[in-house]
């Protein structure tokens, strides 16, 4: 990989150049929670100053810019007794500034499931390829356990990746597009001093992690503890609201529905992100529900994250951002659930 350093004002200049030609998404402060902590969302910005790169985490992941909550898969025009199908993909370029390593890993995982595997999704690919991704290093967020999942640093999946060295950024260039973006800017070749500073920052970050869990044995454990009372304990609390899957950077389950316009001249097939925690997720015709209980549904979310995806791609789907844990009103969070399972296994 190529590395450069870039003075902060020059990075601002870069973002402003991007802003002049395309839509830019960045972490934006949207309010304060009841404990006085700032709330950030990834939102479109109109100027560099709206971006708050110092954010701890965002309430929602950035997946909506790749995998929108609602998306038109195709539309139909009806005429006489016939119809025509129309499909459009999003080809408007866009830049996302300030993704953390876990979110970049989330994209890499989504790439595997949606862009590389059987039946690659053209909708996802169109968005992914048209999005310029700038990542940034940061001190560990509270409750995040990305380090346990190996998603605390990113080496690919982005165009540029920044590490804050005080006055300047240490920039990893992840693509030809990233390289070209820097052209014309006074980006310097890295010096020994830069490397030293960079390693020091990395070390500080690494030392800051407080939350760790052991995920090695999870695939097996999930099978063994299939009937565990742990599911009853946590499942009994679950509100079946789907919030966890909505904020998760890697949950991609969905439902498809169709509708026609009121004048019956056109129709649309729409995909809406869904959650395996919702009660009708596995209802089949005739009304049989394969997962009628909250605990089975909750269990299956963990199953997919830590076992199903593992079997398919040799890695868990979870990136350890703990967004699901933070958003869950019932206080269901992966760290405690997994620890409970492991404790159960030991007894």
């Amino acid at each position: 990989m190529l590395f450069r350093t870039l003075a902060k004002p020059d990075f601002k200049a870069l973002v402003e150049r991007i802003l002049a030609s395309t839509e830019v998404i960045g972490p934006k402060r949207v309010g304060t929670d009841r404990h006085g902590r700032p709330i950030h969302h990834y939102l479109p910005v109109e100027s560099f100053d709206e971006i708050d790169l110092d954010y701890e985490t965002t309430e929602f992941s950035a997946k909506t810019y790749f995998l929108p909550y609602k998306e038109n898969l195709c539309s139909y025009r009806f005429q006489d007794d016939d119809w025509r199908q129309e499909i459009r993909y999003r080809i408007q370029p866009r830049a996302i500034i300030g993704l953390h390593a876990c979110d970049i890993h989330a994209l890499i995982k989504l790439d595997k499931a949606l862009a590389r595997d059987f039946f690659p999704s053209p909708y996802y690919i169109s968005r992914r390829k048209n999005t310029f991704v700038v990542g940034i290093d940061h001190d560990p967020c509270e409750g995040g356990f990305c380090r346990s999942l190996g998603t605390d640093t990113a080496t690919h999946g982005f165009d540029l990746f920044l590490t804050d060295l005080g006055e300047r950024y240490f920039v990893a260039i992840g693509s030809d597009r990233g390289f070209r973006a820097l052209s014309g800017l006074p980006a310097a070749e890295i010096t020994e001093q830069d490397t030293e500073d960079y390693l020091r920052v990395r070390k500080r970050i690494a030392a800051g992690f407080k939350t760790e869990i052991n995920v090695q044995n999870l695939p097996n454990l999930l099978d063994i503890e299939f009937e565990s009372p742990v599911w009853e304990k946590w499942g009994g609390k679950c509100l079946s609201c789907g919030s966890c899957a909505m904020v998760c950077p890697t949950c991609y389950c969905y439902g498809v529905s169709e509708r026609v316009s009121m004048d019956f001249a056109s129709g649309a097939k729409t995909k809406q992100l869904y959650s395996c925690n919702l009660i009708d997720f596995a209802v089949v015709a005739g009304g049989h529900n394969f997962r009628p209980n909250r605990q089975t549904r909750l269990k299956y979310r963990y199953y997919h994250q830590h076992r199903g995806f593992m079997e398919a791609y040799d890695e868990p789907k979870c990136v350890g951002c703990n967004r699901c844990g933070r958003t869950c009103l019932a206080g269901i969070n992966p760290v405690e659930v997994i620890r409970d399972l492991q404790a159960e296994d030991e007894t």
Partner: protein
Amino acid sequence: MKQLFYPFDISLESEMKEPLDFNRRSRTKDVDRVFRAEITNVIRLTEMEKLFQVRIMDDAERQRFTFLPGQFLMLELPGYGEIPISISSAPTNKGFLELCIRRAGTVTGALHKARRGARVGLRGPFGTHFPMEKMKGNNVLLIAGGLGLAPLRAPIFHVIQNRSDYRNVHIFYGTGSPEQLLFDYQYDEWRRIDDIEMEVIVERPDPNWKGPVGLITKLLDHVEINPRETYAIVCGPPIMFKFVCARLSDLGVPMQRMFVSLERRMHCGMGKCCRCNVGSTFTCMDGPVFDYWSVMNLKEAI
């Protein structure tokens, strides 16, 4: 910046320009494009089920379309929705596809009102198939309960068309009552022309019923089974194939030689929506056809 953000248009990718062929997983990117198909005939089978003959309208697309017994389609009524439906006709039949559909809700309800000439959308074929090749030279048990005869018809046609490849062939079929029997006009032909042993049983007979009465497992009481040379395909509601497979297992048929077709909610057919996820398995990609051993090992499969 302009060329940095040179827009990428996937419709210009080479795969997108290839003819649509869902059999080439991972090469196919135009995944939501449907084949336009015309309903050429509608045959009322029972109060709840109708058989639809549909024909892919584009000649080239129709010629290219191939499937294996056990595979399914995503059938779309634009504006209403899209549903998975097993293909119920002979794989060699290039003229039209047959779909046997029970009225169950929105899409099937609308479809049941459709007439000849109506145009629907098709995507597929998707999923795994019954291993007809492997079964060659063996006895074959084809067992269906209720609507299970729909997915069973493709393997039946396959066996008939390649009758000499298989030894003894039995069809066992059971429903609740005589008026629920599907395709009753074909039984005679299967028996008399195609040299198939066919037995039908109902749970609640009517006064005209002359055949056996009871659950489908009862039909298995009298057959001679050579466990080493027998394959079974079992289609029907989970409760039914669970009992049938247990019975066959008792008779010594290895579970790897019994095949079932699972039903799950499906919204894509391509392993993306996760609705049909069973344990770590996608019913639409790794199924719907599974051998019974795999099913036993799937959590909550039945």
